Structure formats: structure tokens, C-alpha cells
């Protein structure tokens, strides 16, 4: 799972459709079958009276479930579902579409050899103005709604965060953007962008009906999405945490993208604005296996949450997150961790007297 520095531009080497077991399509087929079998087994063992509802498997759920299964199960419907748009959640979507509009007008349309560097704040404001006139995506409708409500503060914060998203993306990837990079947006009609791929929805033969969707939402694709698998899926983060999480993110996204697209990509690229890093994870089988484990575990925990009558904390993984966890007063491992002797804060011992 070792990352490599992303090199960006690559020579076009053509597409070689491969449906053999070792090809990009064959590997994705194999992965789909393997994940479906594992999900089949989990759903087949679900208690008769359990009702897990729809199970959406994205990176946030995967990170939460892997971080502390007990906490993930306890987060409930509100924690598992999409919480609704907010400036923080909208930042990436707005940043992408605003940058795509800039590319449409100043790069793609004019085939410029020396394209104009975007001005992030101006690009975002221009898009917001247009979106209010003709909203064509869920996030544009949300921005329109904010305008109607006169919520200037939320609009300002959204513009600020989206500006930072564009600035970080362009700063880390360089300008002009790498050859073959195409942004992924919800807004239709942009020649500089493409729509996202629908989630993978396994067809389970179990008599129990549990709707499962495994989704990957990259910020961009680099290269042509074709059966050759000669493309990268790219995810941009405004903030990083640690290397372990980045590797886990790469694993999950490699698997989720392979499942959704039906083709195993060449690599997962993670760009991180706060550190300036560009990490490239070639999609090897061990990365896919780890990602499958992460995805399947989300379903496992969701099914278990629908079965467990009371609180269950046996598999809790205490960490600094316990300080903010809703279960911090009732979860024995968490309580013990918070009051443990010799506890550390930010890597240093804590003195109380």
C-alpha cells in the first residue's frame, strides 16, 4: 500500500480491453463476486425481526466503522445518513463545479496552451450567481435556497470553503492541471467534467431484502475510464489526519470505485491541501482486499446495530474521539480510557496536579 508521489502527466498508451482474470475488468468482476458473497452471508444470517433499512457504504461510514464499531453502531439513523447540505459538506461540490466552469470558459473552449490561472474566490462567486439563476444540481438548489432565505452568512462560509478547495486543489496538482484530468461534478453539461458513477448495488439472492449501495465519489479522474483500467481516481482533501488514514482511504476508494465502475483503476491518487502532498497508491490486490474488508464491515455493523437490543461496547476502540463521543459516559472501554492513568494528550503525558 505504499504511496508514490503522483507524477501527473502520462503518455497516452491506448486502451486494451481486458476481461481476463488478471485484467482490469476481470479483477473488478472477481471483486464484485467476492464482496457480494460476503454480503450474502451477512444478510443471510440477519435475525428475523431485524430491520437495518437501506445501507449506504461510503468512505465516511467506512472510516467510522473501522475507527470504533461501537460508536458507529450507536450513531443511529441520523449518523448513518446524509445529514443534509452544509457549508462544510458543500465546499467540495461547489469548488469542483466552479473550477469546471472556469475550465469550460478559459481552457477547454479556447484550447489555450497557457490557460488563465483561476481566481478561486471569483470563480466561486461567478458560479453561485449563475447557479441561483438556473440551478441544475442538488448543491446549486441548496445555494439558491440559501439566497432565498437571505442566509448571507452561510453563503459566505460556503464561498470561503469552496475557494479554499479550489486553491488547494490547484496548488497541489499544479497549473495547468495534469493532462487527462477530468473533474467529477453533479452539474450536467460541462465539457470539462463528467458525472459521477452510480453506486454498486449488489443483487443478493437472500430472501431478506436489504438495499446496499457501495459508493465512491472521486473529485476527478485522470485518464480515460475504459476497460484497460488505464485511469486514476483522484480524491482531494482540504485537511489530512495521519498516514494510516490516508492509506485506509486509498484502500476503500480503490475497492468502491472498482465495484461501482466495474473496472479496477490503475491507481488511487490522494491530494492533501494542508500538507501539499500528492500520494499515489497503485491498486494492487492487497489494497482491494483491505478496501473490501472496510466496505463489508460497514454492512456488518449496520446489520448488527439492527439486531442488538441494548448498548454493546465489547468491540469499542477507545481513542481521543472518546472525548466527543455520545457514548462517552456509558461505554465502559471509553470511560476507562478517558480516566486511565498515564493518559496522553497530543502525544504528551497529562498532569492533573
Amino acid at each position: 500500500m505504499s504511496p508514490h508521489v503522483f507524477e501527473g502527466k502520462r503518455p497516452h498508451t491506448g486502451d486494451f480491453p481486458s476481461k481476463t482474470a488478471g485484467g482490469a475488468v476481470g479483477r473488478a468482476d472477481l471483486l464484485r463476486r467476492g464482496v457480494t458473497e460476503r454480503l450474502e452471508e451477512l444478510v443471510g444470517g440477519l435475525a428475523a425481526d431485524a430491520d437495518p433499512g437501506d445501507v449506504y457504504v461510503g468512505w465516511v461510514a467506512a472510516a467510522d466503522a473501522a475507527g470504533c464499531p461501537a460508536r458507529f453502531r450507536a450513531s443511529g439513523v441520523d449518523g448513518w445518513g446524509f445529514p443534509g447540505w452544509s457549508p462544510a459538506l458543500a465546499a467540495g461540490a461547489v469548488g469542483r463545479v466552479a473550477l469546471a466552469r472556469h475550465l469550460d470558459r478559459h481552457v477547454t473552449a479556447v484550447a489555450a496552451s497557457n490557460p488563465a490561472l483561476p481566481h478561486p474566490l471569483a470563480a466561486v462567486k461567478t458560479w453561485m450567481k449563475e447557479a441561483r439563476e438556473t440551478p441544475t444540481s442538488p448543491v446549486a438548489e441548496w445555494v439558491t435556497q440559501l439566497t432565498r432565505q437571505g442566509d448571507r452568512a452561510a453563503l459566505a462560509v460556503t464561498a470561503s470553503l469552496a475557494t479554499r478547495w479550489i486553491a488547494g486543489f490547484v496548488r497541489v496538482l499544479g497549473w495547468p492541471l495534469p493532462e487527462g484530468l477530468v473533474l467529477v461534478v453533479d452539474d450536467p453539461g460541462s465539457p470539462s467534467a463528467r458525472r459521477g458513477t452510480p453506486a454498486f448495488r449488489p443483487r443478493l439472492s437472500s430472501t431478506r431484502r436489504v438495499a446496499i449501495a457501495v459508493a465512491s465519489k472521486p473529485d476527478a479522474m485522470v485518464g480515460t475510464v475504459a476497460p484497460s483500467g488505464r485511469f486514476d481516481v483522484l480524491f482531494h482533501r482540504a485537511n489530512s489526519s495521519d498516514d494510516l488514514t490516508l492509506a485506509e482511504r486509498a484502500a476503500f476508494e480503490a475497492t468502491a470505485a472498482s465495484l461501482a465502475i466495474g473496472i479496477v483503476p490503475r491507481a488511487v491518487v490522494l491530494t492533501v491541501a494542508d500538507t501539499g502532498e500528492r500520494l499515489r497508491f497503485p491498486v494492487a490486490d492487497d489494497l482491494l482486499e483491505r478496501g473490501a474488508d472496510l466496505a463489508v464491515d460497514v454492512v456488518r455493523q449496520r446489520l448488527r446495530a439492527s439486531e442488538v437490543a441494548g448498548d454493546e461496547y465489547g468491540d469499542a476502540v477507545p481513542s481521543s474521539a472518546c472525548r466527543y463521543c455520545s457514548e462517552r459516559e456509558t461505554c465502559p472501554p471509553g470511560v476507562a480510557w478517558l480516566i486511565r492513568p498515564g493518559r496522553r494528550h497530543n502525544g504528551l503525558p497529562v498532569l492533573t496536579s
Partner: protein
Amino acid sequence: MAGGRTQFARGAGSATGGTGVRTIGVVLAALLGDPSRLGQPVGGEVLDEARAILDHAAGSGAGSWSADEPLRLAKASVRGLLECPRRSLADPDLLDSGDLTNIVLGQIVDAGAKLATLGPAVPPTVAAACEYLVAIGDERVADHLLDVGAEAAEALLADAAARLDPLVAGWPATIDGQWWPRVEEPVRLRLAGGAVVVSGKLDILLGGPPTGLPGLVVELKGGQWHDSVRQDGHLYALLVGLRDGVAPAAVLSIAAADGATQLEPIRPEVVLHAAERVATAIETAAAIAAGEPARACPGSYCAFCPLRPGCPEGTAAHEAAA
């Protein structure tokens, strides 16, 4: 270069007070209008040397930490480890949050200046700054205003307006898009494979790669000037430099309560000094993590240190001061 340190007259915090905070906008506008006044930013060899200083410190002490459980440093912890290592270990739950009213005032002024940077049609008001804070998910100001009651809240908001209004009245009406105005820009440095992490969040960042313009960090303090503002600015310049491959050309620090302003050019010595400070903090932390007792270094902070009752040095210093 426009000035080393410019300390404006105090007293600008009242609505009819001095003109210091108005002048800040003029300073900023002048710099943006003529970027050559910012001078040449530090890059290349100096940043390599700074990186080597930090790598050495992190490498020698990293055995105590891992990427899973790293040493996390930020401006306050670096300062704390250098001032009084023992106090820097105080349980966060025991730390007095300080003068809440002043903190709230600072947050409002900070938010207002950030809003002004984002370029609204009219200068932001205290009410707009409070709404901005709620919109970013920071409810502390709103909660505090409710807690203190209507009369005190009104007085606090009036005080905030006295600081904010002149500040934003003098702010550049629009900052040219080529400066890439960004607020709350996060920056992070990972050392020793992630075992040591140093991070910060810049109030305002203008220019820098890939804009082709020199970088300018603007740090806003709602309260009065104190010298740690400089040290924080140095740290940010170091972190941005190591991230972007070129340091900001200058840091413009503003204390809205007294109008104090400092434009500090980021020279090679400043970058290296900032790296040495962080390295010393890492080495101090490594010694503590390895089991050495944390030294107590008494200072004015002993007055509100939660560890003072059990600290002979702190108790003696506090009694002597009293």
C-alpha cells in the same frame, strides 16, 4: 520593504479613539497595490536547512511516538513547551479558558475581518460577524451572549463594534482575485513519517504559489498586542514555506484592541529561528515522553496555572509577585 515594526498608538479600541486600526487597511492596501514592497520571499536552501533542523529533532525523539499516536504540536503547544514544559502538560480540562469576554471579542473581530476579506458589498457588521461564526459551526459567541444576559451582551457587542467597525472600514474594499484571498487556511507538517505533526490555521493568506505573487500572511488578534503574536507568525511562515516550497514574504499582524500592527518581513534568519524553536519544543517533548520530569519555569502565567498548588517553583514565584 515597508517598515519593520510599526506600533500604532493605543486607544484605537474606542469608537471615537485613535486611527490606528483604520491605518491597518491602508497598510494592507498599499502592500497589495505594490507587491514589490513585500520583498523577496525565502525559498530553496534556507527551507532545506529548516527542514533538516526539524527532521533531526523529530528523528531523534520520534521513538516515543508513531503515526497512529503522534506528537501533535501547534502554536500554543510550541510556545508552552518553550515557556514552561511542566505547565504545557496541564490537563486541558483543568485549564481556565481565560477571560471569556475578551476571547469572544477577539472571535467577533477575527470573523469580521475574514468576512471583509471575502469581499461583501458593504463592510461587515458585528451582527454579520456573529452570524458568520454560527455558520462555520462555532456557537461559542452566541452561547456566551445568551449566558451573560441582555445588558452585558449589549455592552460586549458595542465594544466589539468599536474594534471591528474602524478595522473593516479601512479594509481594502475588494482584494484583487489574483491574490487568491483565503481565510482559515490549514497548514500541516508531518515529520518522522507522521510521528510528529506540526499544524496551524492561518487567519488570512494572500498570494503565494501558484499565483506568482509573494505570499502575505495576515494574523488577526481581537485583543491587545503581545509578543507571542510575532512567534505565531514566524511559525506560520515556516509551515507555509515548507508546504509550498517558498515562504510568505511577510506576516502582517494586527491587534484590534490597541491598533498595534506589525509588518514583519520573513527573512532567512526568521525561518531558521522558527525551525529552531519548533526543534527545541520537539526535543523537550521527547525528553518528557521518555520519562524525564518536566521542568517548571515560573512566569506571569503561574497566576492562572492549574498546576501551581503542586509546583514549588510556581508557588514561590506567584507569592513573590503578589
